[in-house]
């Protein structure tokens, strides 16, 4: 048992080991209106000035709101595309992935449309890997059916950290991440804290006197 992990501050994304190869990832928010999934996706994106192409279908825009630049940070350039049909969302994602200049392509889909099947996700994954542009598919109120996404996450909010000055107020946000299927890493679960000021995601340090049990294996994943 090596305690190195506890000292390691920077949370390393399991996909980012070695040279960065971007691919298709799928995110299932625990509840449809939970913004934690979106916040995690944003924290994973490369920090460049290139624009993010953001495709939303009509239902997810109405039910879960639109991206709000004042909260995301005005430094990111976003191009939003609002469509009504899931087929159009997939078409737009696939065509946008040809464009190497985009920082990322984010697609939001509501429910389980027939169009979103294994073939469609396979096409997106291959396109994304060919152009090396990260593609994130956020699936609100969806069931994790068959999919070719290289990493599939289930993400929800967790009770936030203590506020340094105010006992009553919510502090730095915490998210519970569940990587339940991945090509390049072993599935694992984490609870992470997000620091808004430094824009960095830290894994929750385990209490020192905590008995190391089932989480031991997952903790090792982080160092990889």
């Amino acid at each position, binding site marked *: 048992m090596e305690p190195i992990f506890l000292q390691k501050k920077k949370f390393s994304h399991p996909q980012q080991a070695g040279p960065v190869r971007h691919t298709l990832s799928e995110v299932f928010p625990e509840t449809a209106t939970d*913004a934690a999934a979106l916040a995690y996706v944003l924290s994973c994106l490369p920090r460049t000035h290139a624009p993010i192409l953001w495709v939303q279908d009509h239902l997810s825009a109405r039910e879960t709101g639109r991206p*709000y630049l004042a909260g995301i940070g005005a430094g990111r350039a976003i191009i939003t595309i609002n469509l009504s049909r899931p087929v159009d969302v997939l078409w737009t994602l696939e065509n946008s992935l040809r464009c190497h200049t985009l920082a990322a392509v984010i697609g939001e889909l509501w429910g389980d449309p027939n169009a979103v099947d294994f073939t469609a996700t396979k096409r997106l994954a291959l396109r994304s890997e060919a152009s090396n542009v990260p593609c994130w598919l956020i699936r609100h109120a969806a069931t994790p059916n068959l999919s070719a996404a290289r990493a599939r996450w289930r993400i929800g909010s967790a009770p936030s950290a203590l506020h340094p000055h105010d006992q009553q107020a919510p502090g730095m946000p915490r998210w519970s991440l569940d990587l339940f299927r991945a090509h390049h890493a072993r599935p694992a679960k984490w609870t992470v804290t997000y620091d808004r000021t430094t824009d960095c995601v830290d894994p929750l340090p385990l209490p020192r006197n905590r008995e190391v049990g089932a989480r031991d294996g997952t903790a090792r994943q982080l160092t990889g």
Partner: protein
Amino acid sequence: MERQGNSPADDIPLTLIVEGTHGPVIHATNRTARTMGVQIGARVVDMRAICPELQTEYADREGDKAALERLVLWARRWCPWTASDGADGLILDTTGSAHLFGGEDAMLIEMETQFSLLGLTSRLAIAPTQGAAWALARFGTVRSICTEGEIAQRLSPLSVSGLRLSAETVQLLHRLGLKTIGALMNVPRLSLARRFVKAALTANPLVRLDQALGKLAEPVASVEAKPRFSAQSRLPEPIFDPAPYLPQLCDNLCDALQNAGMGCRYLNLTVYRTDGDVSHIDVATAASTRDPVHLHSLFRDKLERINSGFGFDLITLTAGGVEAIQIVQTQLDGEAHSDLQLTQLLDRLTAKFGPRSVSYPVVYESHVPERAQRRISNFGAPPPQTAELIKERPIRLLDIPEEVHVLYAVPEGPPAQFIWRRKTHRVTRYAGPERIAPEWWKDRPGTRLRDYFKIEDQTGRRIWLYREGLHEDGRGGDPRWFIHGMFA
């Protein structure tokens, strides 16, 4: 000339007004208002005293100027050399072109007819010099025609205002007893020259008189019309599908643009049907371009929307928004522009899904959260300056805030529990309130202030909700609660 677009009835005294130093002043009037004594340049409050039923409308001076510029080019149907004159005049050099319309009389009638078909009143005059035509059109008889020898004779009964002088100079001449141009011509030339030796052009009656009489040359500076880029193909017999001809048309148009060093922002494809009807498709691009393959691809999903009727035998492709584009090599290895891919992608998306679905959000300076972000669809415009963000804001905002049923301990305090979308959320932690007052300069009177709370519920979700108004604030009943956004 007065705009008669969709004007009200002639018996209503109507004026156009502009903002002056001491309140609005009259900019233009219709005939009824003029006969009732309303003067141009007077204040509206004074004229209301004379004519209580006076109707006023704000003048659109920029629009009038743009319309006049278009009219300058439109008037080239009669002669090749036209220019605008002041805010309300056109100068046409009709030398040698009158015979094409059957003489000068017939040409003036033709002009007046065409202008009235556009909804414009016109006062026309033909004279050998620009100054004489100006005076005769404004102060002379209807459609007066003045020949070379009779300028002095035709001008002499007219008022000195006809010499294109400033109001102060006209007033000065009136004080000197010189009311008509004839009286001015009778004054010895030497004394006029001595009196106005240092005066500017608009204050110098001698120079203006010489210009009107033709003793001093006054050339007309015409404007160059922008070249029109268009390609067309005439077909031997009517067809129903323009697709096979489109690549050739795009190639021809882009060749023409290439030769001129121009690119276009809009394309218009028009088919002229055999039954005399016209059908068209418009596409737009995010940046000016002259790439035939790209322009052709913009029509790909749109061609089925064209209504070909019983077939068409003429197709035209016209470029709009033409502007010069420079070829810039951004990389040493001669690779294609990196921006080019993105603009072409946006063009395709706009062409397929419509301009309303593709936009980019920008931060706007406002305290009201829904106004702090705007969506801009025009990718050609430079992105505006971003405002500094101080307060923590949610990363998602609902378009329409959703009303929730709230239980609270103190009326002015945070909620203890609320029901949103049929689920009960228990508030474990909260921050706030942050009070955001309505923007009184923009909101309707009676808009209530908002107290925003960032709350965390039992599952850890962080939600932004607000109470609209206060108890007993006199702006409606009990305050209501709304969910507005979600934090990270």
